[in-house]
């Protein structure tokens, strides 16, 4: 029998990305841990393809530029490199990049011998971890989809075309989400500006999550497994709107009316009209 490669067009469009949701968070992440900061790199497996080093570095730069700088000058950083192979030059690039935002790289946590050697030679303190044990109690929640959401990610700039924000918690964007830009959150998404790109809330399957924006001009909205596209003609609304999942799918209402009118029904896994719920 002849197996022809098939390129199927049918309906693919209507199914949200079927890749495991965990992989959506294969992004560099920066988090507080006592008086130090943890810089967590995705594992080799999480960056499904061989993402070139330059991409990882760009992402780091971008993260540091857009993240609200909620640290003290000179805060120490522990790099959780997991199974990533890093040479002395790459470690130096990371250190320099951190330096630019007044952070200082102190410790490298890794389970690769080569990375450990490079780190030690460059004068960093090294924590070598074995592959099986969790690298760090803090970082384990990133490794497994957990019900506990990470602290909200606050982005203080416009998310431009080509940028994808992934976060295992709620995302707040203080700016626009432009066409070609994407925000994927395990929690809610709030855009304090125009939402013109793609937003996916509740990306780990939580249908209770919501998406709100001062102005909804989205390319696509997704909440858990539901997808919504804008109708061909949608008059510009002047008031902020909020999107949520009802039994019929994603619905948009004026943000002001939402809390008054809707309540989440766990049995139906959807928001229902308060009056009808009784």
């Amino acid at each position: 029998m002849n197996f022809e490669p098939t390129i199927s067009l049918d309906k693919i469009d209507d199914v949200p990305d079927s890749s495991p949701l965990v992989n959506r968070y294969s992004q560099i992440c920066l988090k507080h841990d006592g008086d130090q900061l943890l810089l967590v790199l995705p594992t080799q497996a999480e960056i499904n393809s061989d993402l070139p080093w330059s991409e990882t570095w760009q992402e780091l730069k971008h993260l540091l530029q857009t993240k609200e700088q909620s640290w003290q000058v000179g805060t120490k950083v522990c790099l959780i490199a997991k199974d990533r192979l890093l040479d002395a030059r790459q470690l130096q690039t990371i250190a320099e990049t951190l330096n630019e935002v007044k952070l200082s790289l102190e410790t490298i946590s890794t389970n690769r011998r080569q990375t450990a050697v490079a780190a030690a030679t460059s004068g960093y303190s090294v924590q070598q971890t074995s592959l099986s044990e969790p690298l760090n109690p803090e970082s384990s929640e990133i490794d497994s989809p957990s019900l506990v959401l990470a602290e909200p990610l606050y982005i203080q700039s416009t998310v431009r075309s080509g940028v994808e924000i992934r976060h295992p918690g709620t995302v707040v964007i203080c700016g626009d989400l432009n066409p070609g830009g994407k925000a994927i959150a395990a929690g809610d998404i709030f855009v304090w500006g125009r939402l013109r790109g793609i937003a996916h809330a509740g990306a780990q399957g939580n249908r209770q999550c919501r998406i709100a924006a001062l102005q909804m001009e989205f390319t696509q909205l997704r909440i858990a497994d539901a997808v919504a596209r804008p109708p061909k003609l949608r008059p510009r609304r002047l008031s902020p709107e909020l999107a949520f999942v009802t039994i019929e799918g994603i619905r948009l209402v004026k943000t002001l009316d939402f809390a008054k009118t809707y309540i989440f029904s766990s049995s139906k896994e959807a928001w229902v009209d308060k009056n009808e719920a009784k």
Partner: protein
Amino acid sequence: MSRIIVVTSGKGGVGKTTTTSNLGAALAKQNRSVALIDADFGLRNLDLLLGLEERVVYTAIDVLAGECRLAQALVKDKRLKGLVLLPAAQNRNKESVQPEQMKKLANALAKGYDYIIIDCPAGIELGFRNAISAAEEALIVTTPEVAAVRDADRVIGLLEAEGVNKIGLIVNRVKPLMVEENKMMSVEDVLELLGVPLIGVVPDDEKVIVATNRGEPLVLGEYDSVPALAYSNIARRLEGEKVPFLDLMANQGNILSRLRRMFGG
């Protein structure tokens, strides 16, 4: 203090090279010294647009390889005092240059010229990284088309991530008639999406193509052509002057639609 400015867009064919050559000429005409760097290795054509092609002897690559001195590689424009070009090699591939080397060239030129303007290749790969590596400021060129604006947006994001925050926007090839008929994005639409300050609006005009083919920057020709005026206005705004934008829409539509435009309707 000299200024190192990269002219970039993401998308190809939107007018980066046209902007670089005309802006360089306009600044030189306003008595500034200007060095233009062609960073589009492999596809050079800034020399063509400036009409300097047959005078190119050495290129940036030769300078980097130590085969000639920087001053030897610079091609002087005889028509405009103060305007020089550092040509790109046409035969070498882009990988033969590194961001650090571009930085060296630009910084060396910055010692002798008021403006260093870098003509960036299309795309966002190594050629782009080379071109922006030395830049302190950027001019984003876009046409009022969805795809061009999308790419411009992406490039602005990359520039911001690199710490290049002084960004000016040039909307090129605007067709007032099409805007009026709602068939083309307006300058306002573009501005609203990109959210960076506007520094120039250039109409779509066949005089631009004629000048390109002749290898003669517009400001050298008849001064009163609209695109020539648009470029010298950009040069003046770069110099810090407040110059009102040309009302390209002035001849379009009736009184009512013009009023609506004025009041942002």
